Each structure stands twice: as structure tokens, then as C-alpha cells.
């Protein structure tokens, strides 16, 4: 294994993780957006001629709730983004570590001195 192969492995791993992460996050955001829109539409209809027509306190509860649900959606997206960054980083670290192990093993370093996974950064 040479430097070019290690780099190719790293880029391939990175690309895979970023694609998976993007698919997860975009699917989640689209689903949440659809559900929030559905709720907004329902609240508007109920406010005009439904159980919320004469109930300001309950209407405020649902409107405030939508705001908090939206904030939590954004926090969830931030967490999924952090997870994607973690997985992308680790995919690169694993590919790099694998290449280093191959090179070092080829140079005669005993396998028991080469951990199979990279150390965790504390």
C-alpha cells in the first residue's frame, strides 16, 4: 500500500459517510417540515371554526408548542450533523490507521503492537 492508495481509501470512506449523513438529515428535515406545516394548517382551521375558536389559552399553548418543537427539530439536526462529522472523521482515521498498519506490518513491526482500531481522542 502506498500514499496514493491510503488517500483514495480515506476519500472513499469520507464520501460514503457524508452521503449517508446528508440523506439522513435531509429526510428528517423534510419529514419534520411536513408535520409542522400540517399542524399549522390544522391550528389555523380550528382557530377559525373549531375547538380553538374561543380558547385563547389553549391556542397559545399550541402556538408556543410549535415554537419549541421547531427549536427541538433544529437541535436534533445539529446533533445529527455532529454525528455525521464524527462518523466522517472516524472513517478517515480508520482508513489512515489501516494504511499505516499495513505499511508498518510490511516493515516488520509485530502485529500485536498494532491495535486494529485508532485510539479515541479524549
Amino acid at each position: 500500500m502506498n500514499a496514493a492508495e491510503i488517500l483514495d481509501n480515506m476519500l472513499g470512506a469520507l464520501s460514503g459517510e457524508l452521503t449517508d449523513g446528508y440523506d439522513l438529515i435531509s429526510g428528517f428535515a423534510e419529514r419534520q417540515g411536513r408535520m409542522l406545516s400540517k399542524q399549522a394548517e390544522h391550528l389555523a382551521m380550528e382557530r377559525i371554526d373549531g375547538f380553538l375558536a374561543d380558547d385563547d389559552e389553549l391556542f397559545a399553548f399550541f402556538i408556543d408548542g410549535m415554537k419549541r418543537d421547531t427549536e427541538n427539530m433544529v437541535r436534533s439536526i445539529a446533533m445529527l450533523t455532529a454525528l455525521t462529522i464524527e462518523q466522517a472523521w472516524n472513517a478517515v482515521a480508520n482508513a489512515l490507521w489501516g494504511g499505516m498498519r499495513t505499511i508498518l506490518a510490511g516493515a516488520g513491526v509485530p502485529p500485536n503492537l498494532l491495535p486494529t482500531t485508532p485510539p479515541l481522542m479524549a
Partner: protein
Amino acid sequence: MQTLYLAHRQLALFFALFLFSGCAIQLVPDYDQALLDGLNDANTEALTLFAQVESGSTAEEYPSHARDYAVLIGKFGALRQRAQSRYVPPLASRLAEKKIIRDFCASETNPNGCLNASPASIGEILANIRRMRDLHRERGLQSGAVVAFRNRYDIQIDQALTVENALKR
């Protein structure tokens, strides 16, 4: 030219080695199978309750549902505690202290809001079910009200389940 190309590649590899030091990182908590199982279990019970009252339910009928509400509130409360008290990796905690993240993500109850998002979502599930219970007990539930509570619940449980499922890595 070929030599220059190879030199560039080797230089890039050297910097990659230097930058990454071959270290893995952890930014979000570990996967918790028990938490996910608990969410799936409580979700089934919540959807059953919504199905029971989807055509509306009077205040007189509330006593026959009181236990269902109590069980749901107890289950989601326990799940929220479990999610809230889990181990957040040190690197993530240090990241959460950065001003840009702290200002946006932190809440009074959860300083790691963007790195452990489920407690806030489960907390909103609890607030939603409690409000629905109180309305049911005091005035009964019209079908439109059930839809509004159900819509909120769907948003919140989707957040918690998506995040917890994603942690299985």
C-alpha cells in the same frame, strides 16, 4: 512532473497524519438500546390512547383513561431521566461550552442540547400528554383537539426516535 505529483501526494499524507494523528473522536453519546426499546414501547401505548379517543371523548369518560395517561407520563418521564443522565463524551462537553454552541443549543435543563437532543423532545412529549389529560378531565376532548395533540406528538416522537436510531453506529 510525475515526481512533483508524488511529492504532493506524500506531503498531503504527511499533513493528514499530522492533523489526524490517527485518532478517532466521539461527539455524541453512545447508542442506548434500552432507551430506544423504551421509546418504541411507550410509543405503541401512546398511539393506542390516541386511537381510543380519536373520535372525541367526554369528561365523564376520562376516568376510564386516567390510568393510561398515568402510565404514559410515568414511562416517558423515566425515559427522559435516562436520556438526560447519560454519559456525554468529554470532547462533546468541551465543544458545548463554546459560545456559539452554548448560545444556540443550551437550555436551562440541558447544557448539551445539541449533543444530547432527546431529553428536550421527550420533555415536550410529557408536556403535551399532561395538557391533553388535563383538558380531557376538565372539559373532554373534541376530535379536532385530539388531532392537534396527535400532530404535536408525531413531531416529537419522530425527533426522539430518529436521533436515538441514528446513534447505532
